[in-house]
């Protein structure tokens, strides 16, 4: 394996994407950073592999871990020279979550964001009171308990049908 890795210090961009898809979010291990929409671009400048990522929330402490996980993963696959750039604009949105990512969240017990995040960003505008489905029993009869959960990206909800509390990945 090691010998094979050494042969290719500028692997194909498609391979790099595949390897990045195996790097998971440290807070939500079932979600890869590609499914989360954090990886915005992969390319080469001269012989240096450049991975461009974007932060989820400004203060999310996972970003530092994610960057070092990217370095470790790609070095393990024999990427020689690597640079990780951060891009702020366009700002990350949950609309970039892939369908696979949404399914993984649901299976993990976190309700994926409902509806489109675009247009939510207003001083007085509200997210429509669209029912959030319980990730455990699927019931739409749920209520918000707290606008923030264990991480900035989540809120705390409760299912009135099965009684379970659950995290909701907020549309952002």
């Amino acid at each position, binding site marked *: 394996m090691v010998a094979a890795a050494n042969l290719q210090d500028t692997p194909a961009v498609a391979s790099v994407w595949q390897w990045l898809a195996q790097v998971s979010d440290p807070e939500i291990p079932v979600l890869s950073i590609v499914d989360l929409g954090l990886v915005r671009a992969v390319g080469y400048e001269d012989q240096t592999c450049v991975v461009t990522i974007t932060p989820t929330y*400004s203060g999310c402490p996972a970003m530092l871990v994610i960057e070092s996980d990217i370095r470790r993963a790609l070095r393990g696959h024999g990427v020689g020279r690597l640079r990780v750039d951060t891009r702020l604009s366009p700002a990350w949105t949950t609309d970039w979550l892939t369908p696979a990512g949404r399914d993984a969240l649901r299976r993990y017990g976190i309700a994926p964001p409902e509806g489109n995040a675009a247009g939510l960003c207003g*001083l*007085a505008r509200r997210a429509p009171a669209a029912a959030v489905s319980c990730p455990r029993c699927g019931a739409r009869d749920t209520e918000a308990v707290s606008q923030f959960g264990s991480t*900035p990206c989540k809120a705390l909800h409760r299912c009135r049908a099965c009684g379970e509390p659950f995290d909701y990945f907020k549309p952002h």
Partner: protein
Amino acid sequence: MDRFLFEYVLRLADSGLILSQRLAQWCGHGPALEEDLALTNVSLDLLGQARMWYALAGAVEGAGRDEDALAFLRDAAQFRNYLLVEQDNGHYGDTMVRQFFFDTWHYLLLERLGGSGQKDIAAIAEKSLKEVAYHARRSGDIVVRLGDGTDESHAKMQAAVDAIWRYTGELFVDDEVTADMASRRWAPMHDELRPAWLDHVARVLAQATLAAPDSIQADHPAHRGGIVGRHTEALGYLLAEMQYLQRAYPGASW
């Protein structure tokens, strides 16, 4: 160095950091677990935003000061935050009124800065705006709930509004810094934000059955000066606590 750009960005960075520190003081003391979580999450958002502004300020200054040097190694007179954000937390209602006044202004300002001709400012503002929209809706909701609550919560909220109102005028002060930024279309004149701020605040206060003080009461010169380094006593105590470790153990790292 682009002095006006540096000063302007520092105002945003310092205001975010100081309010973040104030909210973090609630950690473990919130009136309910959910509120504790919310305040510290808002604090975290503001800290993340402040770090982006400090990184930009440090780059503009070009003197080798990074975000830590700017946050931890300056004294009160070098801080450029608005007086509003350094005020003591008081009780939970005081904190939420201060937050609501700030969030509303912050939202309106970031909305304009998102269209800034300076691309770093525009990117940080675009990123922050979505977080601040959530803050503003939440603090507005709490103001309504507590204002239109029991007789006791109503009285406490009205007293909080009356006491904190005086620090809101500074948010709309223009000087050579904002004028220079506006002339380059990098930021709005802050006075332009005031009608929309008053409008939104009046609507929420009315919904909360609270009386809005006359805006003239926010314009006394004694209640401004933070953005040029003239602070209230509260800031020194806050910095003493926040900067202790880096001052006592210079260069300390985890």
